[in-house]
C-alpha cells in the first residue's frame, strides 16, 4: 500500500492522533522547520487532524523565502549585464525585487537561464567562453554540496568564467535565533529531514540540551509529520529534551561525510541576513578566500543596495512562529502569490503561499477541511 494511501485510509493516522490525545495533558506549540514539511502539512490538512491544543507553527526553512531582498536586487543587477549569463533554479525567477523579477529581465533581453543542477553552469561556461556565467547559489545545507562541487570543479578544471552569488543559510542557527527571542512560543521542533541527510543531527544535540527543547528529525510525508509530532509531544509530556530521529529510513546521526567534507573545503561560516528576520550570527556560508575568484559579489563589486519591506507585512513573525498567515490583514487581500509583499508569500513553500494555494484564505474551505479532519480522513 502506498504511503499516502495509508494516510488517507486513516487507520494509522487515527492511531497516532489517538495516542497524542491520550498522552497530552496541556497545549503545546511545535514548529516544523522545513518548507517542504509546511507545504505537506497544509496540503494534507495534517494540522487540522491534530488534537486541539497541539499547534503547528511554520518555520524559516524555505530558502527562496528567506533570501534577502538586497540579494535579489544584486542578482537582478548582475542578470541585467550584457556580458552575463545568469543561471538559477526555477523558483527564484518570479521572486520580485525592488524592480521586477528575473522573468522581466529575461523578457527585456537578459540572458537568464533556469538550470536543473549547478553543474549545468560548468557546461554553459565552457560553451560560452566570452561570457561570465553566474549561478544564484541559494539554499540550505541540502543544496550546499552541489554548489561546492560546482566551484571546486571550476577551480580544478581551470574554468574561469563561472562564479556564484552566494546566499546560503543554515538551519541550526535559525532555530537558536527563534529560541533566543523573548517572544518565542515554540516548545518543540520537527527537524528538517533532507537537510539532515547531508549534515546528520549531531549538531542539534547541544542546542536541544542548552535550550531544553525536543527536536525530532522528521520526514515530509503526512504520516512522518504525525509520527514526529507524537515523538515531540511524548518528550514534552515526559519532561525530556533530546534529539530523536523519526526519519531513520533516510538518515543517521552522521549524515553524508563526503558532502560535508567538500562543503567545508569550499565554504566557511558567515553571518547572514534572513529576509523578514534580519541578520543572524554565523547562520550561513560564504566562499573561502581560496575561492574568491568564483565569488560573484567580488567580481562585480556590487554596492550595498538599500531596500525596504512593506510595513504591513508580518512575515518575520510568521517565520519565527509568533504569528500565522491569518493574523495578517494583507494575507489573501493585497498580498497574494501573484503580488507577494514579503518572504512567506514569495515561494510555494512559504507558509502564506501554502495557506493561499490550499484555500485557507477562504473561510468556507477552512470549515470543509476541519470537517474532513474530524472524520478521521484528510484533504
Amino acid at each position, binding site marked *: 500500500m*502506498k*504511503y*499516502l494511501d495509508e494516510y488517507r485510509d486513516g487507520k494509522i493516522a487515527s492511531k497516532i492522533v489517538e495516542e497524542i490525545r491520550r498522552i497530552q495533558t496541556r497545549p503545546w506549540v511545535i514548529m516544523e522547520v*522545513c*518548507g*517542504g514539511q509546511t*507545504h*505537506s502539512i497544509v*496540503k494534507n490538512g495534517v494540522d487540522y487532524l491534530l488534537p486541539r491544543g497541539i499547534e503547528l507553527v511554520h518555520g524559516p*526553512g*524555505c*530558502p*527562496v523565502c528567506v533570501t534577502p531582498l538586497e540579494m535579489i536586487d544584486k542578482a537582478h543587477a548582475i542578470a541585467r549585464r550584457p556580458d552575463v549569463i545568469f543561471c538559477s*533554479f*526555477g*523558483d527564484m525567477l518570479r521572486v520580485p525585487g525592488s524592480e521586477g523579477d528575473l522573468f522581466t529581465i529575461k523578457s527585456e533581453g537578459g540572458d537568464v537561464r*533556469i*538550470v*536543473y*543542477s*549547478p*553543474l*549545468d553552469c*560548468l*557546461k*554553459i561556461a*565552457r*560553451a560560452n567562453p566570452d561570457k561570465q556565467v553566474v549561478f544564484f547559489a*541559494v*539554499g*540550505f545545507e*541540502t*543544496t550546499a*554540496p*552541489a554548489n561546492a*562541487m560546482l566551484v571546486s*570543479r571550476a577551480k*580544478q*578544471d581551470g574554468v574561469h568564467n563561472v562564479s556564484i552569488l552566494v546566499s546560503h543559510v543554515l538551519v541550526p542557527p535559525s532555530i537558536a535565533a527563534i529560541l533566543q527571542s523573548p517572544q518565542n512560543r515554540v516548545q518543540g521542533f520537527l527537524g*528538517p529531514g*533532507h*537537510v539532515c*541527510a*547531508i549534515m546528520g543531527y549531531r549538531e542539534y544535540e547541544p542546542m536541544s540540551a542548552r535550550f531544553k527543547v525536543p527536536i525530532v528529525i522528521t520526514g*515530509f*510525508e503526512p504520516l512522518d509529520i504525525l509520527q514526529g509530532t507524537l515523538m515531540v509531544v511524548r518528550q514534552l509530556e515526559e519532561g525530556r529534551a533530546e534529539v530523536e530521529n523519526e526519519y531513520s*529510513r*533516510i*538518515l543517521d546521526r552522521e549524515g*553524508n561525510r*563526503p*558532502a560535508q567534507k*567538500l562543503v567545508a573545503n569550499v565554504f566557511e561560516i558567515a553571518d547572514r541576513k534572513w529576509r523578514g528576520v534580519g541578520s543572524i550570527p554565523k547562520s550561513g556560508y560564504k566562499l573561502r578566500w581560496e575561492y574568491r575568484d568564483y565569488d560573484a559579489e567580488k567580481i562585480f563589486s556590487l554596492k550595498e543596495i538599500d531596500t525596504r519591506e512593506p510595513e504591513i507585512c508580518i512575515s518575520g513573525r510568521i517565520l519565527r512562529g509568533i504569528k500565522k498567515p491569518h493574523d495578517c490583514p494583507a494575507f489573501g487581500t493585497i498580498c497574494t502569490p501573484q503580488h507577494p509583499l514579503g518572504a512567506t508569500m514569495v*515561494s*510555494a*513553500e512559504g507558509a502564506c503561499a501554502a495557506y493561499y494555494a490550499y484555500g485557507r484564505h477562504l473561510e468556507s474551505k477552512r470549515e470543509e477541511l476541519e470537517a474532513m479532519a474530524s472524520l478521521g480522513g484528510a484533504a
Partner: protein
Amino acid sequence: MCLAIPGRVTETFAKGGMRMGRVQFGGITREACLEYVPETQPGDYVLVHVGFAISRVNEEEARRTYQALLELEQLTELDVPEVLEPGASGHGGSA
C-alpha cells in the same frame, strides 16, 4: 527546494573527473553526480537533489517518496531541459 527526489540508477560512468550516473525518475532520465555516494551501483535507488545523489534508499522507500513528491507537485525541477556538453551529442536530453 530542499526535498530530494528518489530515482533508480541505470548506469554509472566517469566524466569531468567525477563519478556520474544516469538516474531514472518515473519516465524521465537525468544525469546525476555520484561523488557523494561513491559506492552506488546500477540498480541502486538514490535520493537526488539538484543533480547530486545524497543518500541511498531501498526500492519501497523510493517508490513512496516519489509518490508523495508527485502529489506535492515537487517534481517540476525534473522538467528543466538538460544542458548538453558543448560539442557533444550527450545522451539525447530528456522529456
